[in-house]
């Protein structure tokens, strides 16, 4: 297992280099004048030229790339044009917030969606099942920004139970997490239900029945493991989606996460921050996929066999 993880981590290196290469060249194609961005309208032409030279803006592309890589290796992702703070500092201050939000939202999704899907599947054709199927379709179809606004309207403005935005207490997290989790719960519970129904038709479930196993034993001992594989896939992709894509939720609820940084950086043409956060996000995406693969291996011996 450890060997597998080491091998996979090593294999990530070329991928990371490729990601940096692509992002670096794209951000270089974008027109812009870093000196002007840094100094604003007040700076004189001379000062702007001086800064540009200092940054090596007019160096050949390849040299710039190599210089950037050299920095990345020692953990220097450059300095933000706007705040003049090291990119790494800026991101690492905000990233934990986003990470926390994504982890909690994913856990909440799993805690609700998996049992709901299982109950729905085991009570197929019942009124409860029909209710779950219809409401989960509704949840899965709701766009996040609309859900966020509606939740704020109900729970903050009308009922006054929860704050509208900001950070500070646990209360502040309830609405953002609900916004992220509810559609995911809708989607995942449908998926779990469908997979469970399919698994329950498998021959080995019939074998378990023929042994005299109870329904509960069949579902938890024989079916659940086989249902978890697609659930892990969805949760994993959902999690990495939340890392990079919780921008809207972060904006609406005024949470200082990576989403805000990226959005502002793109708007201001703040190239070092765009580069740094893109690299960070793609590395975390790769790590999430690695984690998913490890979980698959723990669940399914057939997958384990392919690697060990």
């Amino acid at each position, binding site marked *: 297992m450890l060997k597998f993880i080491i091998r996979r981590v090593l294999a990530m290196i070329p991928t990371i280099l490729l990601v940096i290469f692509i992002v670096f060249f794209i951000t270089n194609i974008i027109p812009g004048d870093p000196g002007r961005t840094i100094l604003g309208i007040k700076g004189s032409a001379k000062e702007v030229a001086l800064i540009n030279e200092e940054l090596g803006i007019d160096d050949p592309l390849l040299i710039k790339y190599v210089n950037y890589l050299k920095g990345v290796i020692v953990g220097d992702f450059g300095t933000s044009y706007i705040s003049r703070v090291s990119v790494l500092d800026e991101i690492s201050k905000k990233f934990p917030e986003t990470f926390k939000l994504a982890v909690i939202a994913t856990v909440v999704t799993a805690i609700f969606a998996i049992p709901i899907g299982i109950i729905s599947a085991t009570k197929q054709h019942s009124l409860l099942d029909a209710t779950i199927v219809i409401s989960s379709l509704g949840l899965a179809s709701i766009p996040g920004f609309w859900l966020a606004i509606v939740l704020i309207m109900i729970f903050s403005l009308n009922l006054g139970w929860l704050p509208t935005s900001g950070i500070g207490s646990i209360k502040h997290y309830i609405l953002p997490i609900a916004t992220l989790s509810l559609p995911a719960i809708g989607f995942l519970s449908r998926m779990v239900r469908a997979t469970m129904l399919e698994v329950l038709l498998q021959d*080995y479930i*019939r*074998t378990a029945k023929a*042994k*005299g*196993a109870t329904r509960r034993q069949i579902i938890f001992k024989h079916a659940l493991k*086989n249902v978890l594989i697609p659930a892990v896939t969805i949760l994993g992709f959902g999690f990495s989606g939340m890392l990079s894509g919780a921008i809207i939720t972060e904006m609406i609820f005024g949470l200082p996460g990576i989403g805000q940084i990226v959005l502002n950086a793109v708007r201001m043409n703040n190239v070092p921050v765009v580069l740094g956060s893109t690299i960070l996000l793609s590395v975390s995406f790769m790590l999430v996929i690695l984690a998913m693969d490890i979980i698959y291996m723990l669940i399914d011996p*057939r997958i384990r066999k392919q690697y060990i």
Partner: protein
Amino acid sequence: MSEINCDINTVLEIENLNVEYVNQNTRIYAVNGVNITLKKGKTLAIVGETGAGKTTLAYSIMQLLPSRTGRIKNGKIKFGKIDIVNLDEDSMRVIRGNLISMIFQDPMTSLNPTINVGMQIKESIELHNNDKKSKKQINESVDEILTLVGINPERKDDYPHQFSGGMKQRIVIAMALACSPQILIADEPTTALDVTIQAQVLNMMTILKKQNDMSMIFITHDLGVVAKICDEVAVMYSGEIIEFGTFEDIYGGKSHHPYTDGLFGSIPDIKSDEKWLKPIQGLMPDPTLKIKGCRFAERCSKCMDFCREVHPKEYKVGSHMIRCHLFKQGIFSNE
């Protein structure tokens, strides 16, 4: 209750069993008035082509019919003095896997891919652990049963995908035998295996059956397999038993149902130089139709006019039963 058959040698008795599958707009008559008895320590073969209702019959005994569509319309399945048909799910669970076990057709898919085989066998024992075996004793039983089916107990931590098809079927058999059942129902256990492995598995099953003093219902469409291991044979066609007898009756007797004749006739003879196989012409009747006359009439070469009108009864001579008008008078007694 009808008169209880006092023959202590009978372990399972099925009386006039009718099973249907029903959905919104169709009704499939899968098993129609089946009567069979299984004697202690004997092997009964149920032979018939695909769709004859063999598996439905087996599922009825195990009460494993799909709960929403399959239902036993009437009839009795008497296991000892208990009528399984009216048994509730909890009591049935005590019987399943413990007193009556079943082996399924495809060993490749009958084992759970995510649980190691030792655990899967252990589960059978734990589910029916009436004599309160300790964990250690259960593990010993698992080793014992694996050795019995010819698999090294050291492999019990392996997963199903690490075994070959024949070995998987042995594990399935081990699972079924783990609680020393009184009846073993084997639903085409060798169909998915190649011929050499078939022979191995069949030999093993015969030996284990003798050792455990079990009765066995062996479902197959392979007449060669039947010849190897069976004491009694029931030929099933379109949900009915159309011929029933001892092994000698079926393989040795002169008189047979035309369908049975057709079945044997369709086995190619390696000694003669034949260009074509001799199939029974036509197909089994649509199981959604209620048929007034003989169910085989449309395909029968000896069909008479009233065969299409009158449903034949079970005509018996000694142990041999044939459900065909030809044997009403005289002809059958020629034997």
